[in-house]
């Protein structure tokens, strides 16, 4: 495991981000002095809305969607012993690298106190432990997931007997084929230049094989890739290799059916709620694989004012604030007791699909990889390689899966990451089962 803090990089990162944060902090200091660095709500439209919500609590925040600079800055500040960043709001995967360098405060006491006035989802508290038993590295803040969206014009091409709420992958492929034939061009869109790795890790592999790492090169995975190549990809819009946020091609009418993160589909539902429907991801032979995304709040050990950070966490996890975030930004709450009546149409459309997905009888929750620390990007690359080499470059499926499985196993061994759902628990590093 390589450390990412070198003095010059720390120096340069501190200088650059210190300058940015000083401006943000100088502005925020007018409100509370707390420096809240978040990797969520970075797009400009979301920033304005979230700032409004934060103002009610007397807080402000700085946003940057890349967690790299955040990790570098907090690590450097921890080494220096004092810093500027107080509160960190980031995806689950940002916290393990910070845990590795002892940069996070243990929030287990705060969680105990807060649990007296609100109910945190137990599954998310568990993930906040990051594998430890006694140290809570983040308090769950919000959750999101990936669903599918369809233009109502596409519904007439749905195959016989197919119900949008309980589609299978085969039905999705048949639907896309009918769309292609009927309209003369492929109209299914996938975010290949965006969060495509989550599609592969959380939806495709678990639905067909029942696992993520363990079944990476299984017979079912080979069959799945052959099926994708023959029956799904020909009907996927080829410019998907350039698609990052799927609401853009959906609104332009370039694609009529799309898969993406709820936050990246929301602008389409908000702008034209009468034109689109949301539905859960399809299920495959092994079940309905889906990936819940958890966003957490952590406090840096080098924070200048931990008390203000704790107050901010209290404010952000109050059911009232969680309801506002749900209404205005489309991120779903991590606490119980949130009022879900009177939601804007865009969010309400998605809420149904999200619930249907999570509560399906054959749902297989596939979590984001845990325990890979700062090497989380490599597992994304491995799954992308498996797809790109076979589907885009036409290499032999069996051979590619064997080669990438070797890379995957090496990654697991070198990081020692134990298996996570949907794979069965392992003693020691996660194992890629032989075919």
């Amino acid at each position: 495991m390589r450390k990412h803090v070198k003095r010059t990089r720390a120096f340069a990162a501190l200088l650059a981000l210190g300058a940015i944060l000083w401006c943000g902090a100088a502005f925020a200091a007018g409100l509370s002095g707390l420096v809240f660095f978040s990797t969520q709500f970075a797009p400009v439209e979301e920033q304005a809305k979230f700032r409004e919500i934060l103002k009610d609590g007397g807080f402000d925040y700085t946003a940057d969607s890349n967690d790299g600079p955040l990790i570098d800055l907090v690590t450097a500040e921890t080494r220096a012993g004092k810093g500027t960043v107080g509160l960190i709001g980031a995806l689950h995967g940002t916290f393990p690298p910070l845990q590795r360098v002892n940069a996070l405060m243990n929030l287990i006491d705060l969680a105990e106190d807060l649990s007296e006035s609100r109910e945190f989802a137990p599954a998310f508290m568990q993930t906040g432990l990051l594998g430890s038993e006694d140290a809570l590295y983040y308090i769950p803040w919000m959750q999101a997931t990936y669903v599918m969206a369809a233009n109502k014009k596409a519904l007439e091409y749905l195959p016989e007997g197919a119900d949008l709420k309980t589609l299978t992958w085969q039905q999705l492929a048949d639907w896309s084929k009918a769309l292609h034939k009927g309209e003369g061009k492929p109209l299914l869109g996938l975010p290949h230049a965006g969060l495509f790795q989550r599609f592969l890790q959380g939806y495709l592999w678990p639905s067909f094989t029942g696992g993520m790492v363990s079944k990476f090169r299984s017979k079912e995975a080979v069959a799945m890739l052959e099926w994708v190549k023959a029956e799904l990809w020909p009907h996927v819009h080829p410019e998907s290799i350039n698609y990052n946020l799927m609401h853009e091609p959906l609104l332009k009418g370039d694609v009529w059916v799309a898969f993406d993160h709820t936050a990246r589909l929301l602008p389409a539902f908000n702008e034209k709620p009468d034109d689109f429907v949301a539905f859960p991801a399809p299920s495959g032979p092994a079940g309905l694989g889906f990936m819940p995304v958890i966003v957490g709040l952590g406090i840096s050990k080098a924070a200048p004012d931990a008390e203000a950070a704790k107050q901010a966490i209290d404010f952000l996890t109050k059911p009232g604030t969680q309801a506002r975030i749900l209404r205005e930004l489309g991120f779903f709450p991590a606490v119980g007791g949130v009022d879900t009546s009177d939601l804007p149409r865009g969010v309400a459309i998605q809420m149904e699909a999200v619930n249907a997905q999570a509560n399906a009888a054959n749902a297989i929750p596939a979590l984001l990889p845990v325990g890979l620390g700062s090497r989380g990007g490599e597992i994304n690359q491995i799954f992308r390689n498996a797809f790109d080499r076979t589907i885009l470059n036409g290499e032999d499926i069996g051979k590619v899966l064997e080669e990438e499985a070797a890379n995957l196993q090496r990654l697991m061994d070198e990081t020692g990451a134990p298996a996570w759902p949907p794979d069965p628990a392992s003693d020691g590093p996660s194992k890629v089962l032989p075919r």
Partner: protein
Amino acid sequence: MSIQPLRTPKRRTKTQWAPYLLISPALLYLLVFFAWPMTQAIRLAIWEEQSLLSLRIAPGEENEAGALEQGTRIAVLDRSNVPLAPGEADGGPALLDVWFFVEGETPGGGMIQGWAPESRIRVREADASGVPVRGTIRPRLGSVAGQHTAVHASPDERSEVVGEFASRTEVAIARQKSLEVWFLIEGVRDEQRFSGWAPSRRLQIYGDGATGRVDSGDTGRFTLLHIQRMLNDRFFRSALGTTFLLMLLIIPVQLVLAIVMALVIQARLKFNLLFLAIFAIPLAASDLAVGIVWSSIFTQNGYLNSILYSLGLIESPQAYLTAATRHWILVAVWIAEVWRATSLVMVIVVSGLQAISQEVLEAAELFGATLWQRVRYVILPLLKPSLQVALILRTILALQVFAVVIALGGGDVVTVLANETYRQYYALRNMNTAAAYSGLILLLSMISAGIYLRTVRGQEEAVS
């Protein structure tokens, strides 16, 4: 009287210090902001931090008993607690930092005293100097919720358990001890078995407690690992090939275009300044903006298809920027780059043209040289110094082509060296391989600059 020949007295040349003093701030600037970061970046590519873990003869001691490489599988033979040395924060989380000697009531009703780990106790009250005096037992979360906390006879997990406390029991804290667990481990390196003691913060012990791996070392060493990783990367060959292909396609075309444009400017036609302004517009556009503009032209519903369709040349919109039509992505990148960067070369050539004296050109005209002969035999040779500058500059920038490729192709289907540097840094968080890629770009830039300096010699240099 004899006339003495004039003899200039020998003057010892005094070393002039003044110029060096005057440029020393610039040298300092170069050192701090250029040389130092460069050497650190190159170091990143050939140095592996925490590569080796030194094993000690006894826990907490300095004497070495060998070393193991990071990532080695180990067998755990024994363990011991060692007081944590002050200021040691390196490595991963250490096992069991602090133990409290506590006294409290068991669920059974009796009072017991013993050692419990600090992680199990929430400090509720501390004295004036911050030393904890009272606390409660923390409740457990997750899969071990509801379990009681064991109390030991000495600050060691293996020592005898004297009792247990339920969650939220109130305890009095008498004293505390900071300890780190050290493990006696055994592993193989270079086909030799080594065993010794290592601190837990450098190790990762698996659930069974009997096996684990070396998580981080404490010494670094030179390594070719990162460069090898770069060379074996699945994208390396195509990135290198695409970058060179783009260079070969773009630079000659740009050179010719720039010379033509510069000659047009030099001809001082009517509306000369207007031509100059139009030619120089792309200079102001960022390369990402250019990429986005050209992607809107080449996209399936874009301007190119609209024009071709309205001219009747195609029946339905063609898809250009797809994985199945990679050559089109390259063509689009070529066109976008030629459009964007020619003005840079043109500006340099224009300034070079202005240095050619009018008399030479008039003399050539008088001797009956045609336009083409004038260009070939008079202008081009005299332009060589500025062509050299333009070529060096353009080649170095071409090696860094990045935003246009991403905007047009997404970065996975068609990739270049700069994109690989970005992927290694941003997606894979691998600073070392990213440094290797950028070192490669640097090396190629230096080689190409050297080639140009040697081959594109000016008139005077060639003669001398």
